[in-house]
């Protein structure tokens, strides 16, 4: 009767989910089988008299355990407490309700186990009334030992589940964090909840779960659950997820002043094996994205810059904008409405000036200088035909922008374009440091109609007060296209390498003339100024950003300027998994060997071994009798 109680309950609440007439019927059955023995026991005096006192106690315990267990199960089910928890998702009471649910679940299981154990004890005791005491004692001891062993094994399994440990022996550890990723995750100091929407036993479910388990193991503040969006629709609807293969990262930012922006969330789709390669990068970026205060990037406007919207899609920088937004950066515009000029807004984490056609006014330049030398971050991308002049920003670092078109030969493209330069040489800087891992033919970048940088001195200078790195250089087969025909014209246009991009940072307090521009009370903030300048802006447009390493250079520049080196340049894992390729001979060998030769070799060996042994035994027997 007790076992059947749990069976009816299971069918009613878990299988039928409490819906429909049949669910209620099974629920009624469960209540009946839970209470009927107790009712019978109390109603029928013959039953009570039959059992001795100790047995009556066992029965009381069994009935009580079953009743309480049933009640706790019903209360914690989705019918009651589960609904309350979902409704209180973002309220303070949510944590309390979750704790209550867990307590009820543990209690329900313990009480069910208690009912089971006492049923066994009852049965054994009953047996003792009529059977041999010694045998009964053996049975009781065995039952208790088995129960204790089971409890110990459950506890050990629970401990192994709570304190997980694993070794990832797969190629390049694709199901666990790299050392860098682990260091980043360990540093997260805010709670993050991850909900992965995958069908259990579905495609990629296990792969995603292994990575999430490793992340949760690395930082206890991060927790995850796996939900089937099709079967658990109410949870999916609450999270506004309509299908599987989506991972949702959520965190509450208590420091955010605007209440409606406190809840931060990111979504990552892991749909196929290609996505597995960048799974770690995407997950770590998403976690950083929901736990960091949103950084603000101010784009300059009003001087003919490339913009987010416009009539010619290929001339926009909308792909770049969207990518920055996906990384949780807030995009704003530097215009009079934002208070510029006379100053750059105080909440600007960086300023991006991309392809200004007209020069900035004196007041605007003053505002930019004040911002920059006060510890600001600026990204400059200026075309050779631009009228804008930023020598005030570049001169202190002995950099000069040469507005002359440079081009190169085309080793990596079959399309001839006489104003495109291909670069494959990168200097030692975090923005491009990862590129050296790739072979030369896969690390090219495309620079249409680019100028170049020059230094005041002949050699590259690295002052101890500031660091300057020309991190993108053209190929050695590049030339200044004076005649503008795209063809290298002998000695008039000699081959040389040109500097296309420069990054400047100020690690220590600067005693030289740069300090004159900084306010004395800026202190350490001023030391955090950073500048990235490109002698080209078109490489960031929709037309060219997808070529070669253009997108990574642009993206990494923004991340470096915003001091997000932790997620910068995390390349997808290099998974060289291809199909098993067999030649015709190998194919035949594999089939015939594995399916026929090997098994039959074993069979024949066994046959002869058994025959030989039989012969030896017979021979030995004959010798003995002989």
């Amino acid at each position, binding site marked *: 009767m007790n076992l059947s109680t749990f069976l009816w309950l*299971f069918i009613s*609440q*878990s*299988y039928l989910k409490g819906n429909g007439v049949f669910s209620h019927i099974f629920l009624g059955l469960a209540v009946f089988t839970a209470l009927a023995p107790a009712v019978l026991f109390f109603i029928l005096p013959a039953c009570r008299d039959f059992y001795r006192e100790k047995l009556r106690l066992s029965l009381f315990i069994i009935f009580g355990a079953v009743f309480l267990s049933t009640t706790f199960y019903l209360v914690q089910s989705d019918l009651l407490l589960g609904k309350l928890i979902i409704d209180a998702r973002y309220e303070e009471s949510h944590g309390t309700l979750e704790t209550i649910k867990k307590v009820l*679940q543990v209690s329900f*299981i313990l009480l069910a186990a208690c009912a089971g154990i006492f049923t066994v004890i009852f049965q054994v005791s009953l047996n003792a009334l009529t059977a041999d005491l*010694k*045998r009964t004692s*053996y*049975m009781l001891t*065995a039952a208790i*030992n*088995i129960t204790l*062993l*089971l409890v110990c*094994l459950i506890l*050990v*399994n629970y401990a*192994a*589940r709570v304190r*997980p*440990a*694993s070794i*990832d*022996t*797969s*190629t390049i550890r694709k*199901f666990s964090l790299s050392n860098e990723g682990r260091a980043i995750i360990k540093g997260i100091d805010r709670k993050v909840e991850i909900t992965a929407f995958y*069908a*259990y*036993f579905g495609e990629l479910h*296990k*792969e995603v779960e*292994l990575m999430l388990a490793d992340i949760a193991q690395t930082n206890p503040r991060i927790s995850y659950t796996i939900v*089937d969006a099709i*079967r658990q629709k109410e949870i999916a609807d609450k999270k506004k997820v309509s299908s599987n293969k989506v991972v949702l990262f959520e965190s509450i930012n208590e420091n955010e002043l605007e209440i409606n922006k406190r809840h931060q969330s990111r979504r990552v789709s892991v749909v196929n*094996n290609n996505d597995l390669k960048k799974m770690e990068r995407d997950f770590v970026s998403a976690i950083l994205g929901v736990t960091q205060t949103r950084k603000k990037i101010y784009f300059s406007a009003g001087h003919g810059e490339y913009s987010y919207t416009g009539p010619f899609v290929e001339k926009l920088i909308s792909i770049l904008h969207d990518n920055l937004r996906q990384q949780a950066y807030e995009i704003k515009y530097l215009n009079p409405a934002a208070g510029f000029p006379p100053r750059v807004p105080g909440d600007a984490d960086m300023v991006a000036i991309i392809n200004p056609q007209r020069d900035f006014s004196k007041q605007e330049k003053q505002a930019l200088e004040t911002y920059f030398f006060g510890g600001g971050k600026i990204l400059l991308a200026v075309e050779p035909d631009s009228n804008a002049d930023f020598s005030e920003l570049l001169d202190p670092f002995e950099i000069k922008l040469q507005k002359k078109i440079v081009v190169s030969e085309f080793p990596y493209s079959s399309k001839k374009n006489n104003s495109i330069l291909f670069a494959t040489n990168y200097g030692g800087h975090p923005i491009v440091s990862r590129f050296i891992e790739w072979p030369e033919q896969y690390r090219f970048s495309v620079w249409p109609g680019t100028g170049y940088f020059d230094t005041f001195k002949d050699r590259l200078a690295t002052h101890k007060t500031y660091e300057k790195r020309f991190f993108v250089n053209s190929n050695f087969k590049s030339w200044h296209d004076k005649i503008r025909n795209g063809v290298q014209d002998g000695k008039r246009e000699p081959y040389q390498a040109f500097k296309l991009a420069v990054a400047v940072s100020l690690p220590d307090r600067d005693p030289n003339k740069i300090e004159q521009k900084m306010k004395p009370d800026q202190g350490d903030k001023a030391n955090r100024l950073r500048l990235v300048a490109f002698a080209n802006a078109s490489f960031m447009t929709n037309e060219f950003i997808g070529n070669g390493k253009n997108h990574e250079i642009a993206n990494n520049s923004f991340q470096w300027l915003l001091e997000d080196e932790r997620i910068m340049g995390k390349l997808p894992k290099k998974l*060289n*998994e*291809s199909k*098993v*390729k*067999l030649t015709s001979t*190998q*194919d035949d060998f*594999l089939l015939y*060997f*594995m*399916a*026929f030769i*090997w*098994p*039959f070799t*074993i*069979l024949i060996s*066994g*046959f002869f*071994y*058994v025959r030989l*042994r039989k012969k030896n035994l017979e021979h030995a027997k004959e010798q003995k009798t002989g």
Partner: protein
Amino acid sequence: MTDARQNTRNYLMPIWQIALKEWRGYFHSHLAWGVIAFFLLIAGLLGYFYIKFEKTSFLAMQRVFYTLSGTTMFVSVLISMRLFAEERSKGTLELLITAPITEGQMTAGKYLSVMMFLLIWVTLTLPLPLMVIFYSEAHWGQLLSGYMGVYLLGCATAAVTMFYSTLTRVQLLAAVMGGGNVTVFLLLGFFSPYVGSPVKEIMRELSFYVHYMDFEKGVIVLRHLVFFIGVIIFYGYLAVVSLQARRWR
């Protein structure tokens, strides 16, 4: 030799002797060789098709171990069904029980023989995943992890069937009961998506396949190791209790 070491040696020696005797016995009949050859053929055929048609070498290796897990479970059931059922049917179980060894030593010895047999079986299947490694960029780590999972799965299945072989004198019945129990353990995971918490979590925790899946992918997780060892210990103890119960009658 100190007393403790001598006592340990005295306790372990009968286990080893029983194990050796059983292990040799496996190879003295055509049945064991036939079982090995048959399941090698099945594994070889299925493995060949997976290697040839799977999209990547990783998936091919995963599928090879999926095949090996199934064949290993069958081999475990067939080998362990006779452990005690055969003794009972021949009438030699009473002799064993009255011998100066405990039921624990007897069970441990017989189980050790099955573990040794499974080791031979696993070694004989080695050419299959080795082919994947030689003809592609598959990783040795996945091979080691996969075999660990296959071996643990085989040992757990053998422990379950060994317990059932103590309950009956009919070997086939022991195989059916053991196989049925293992099937329930396998199916628990597949039916878990259809139920709610906490029953869903309990079913997944008890599922053999859920605990095996990570080994296929090359990840060795401690709680899966603990689970399989727990199953082996639990059913091994049940087998011991079942043998001891004969004394009560």
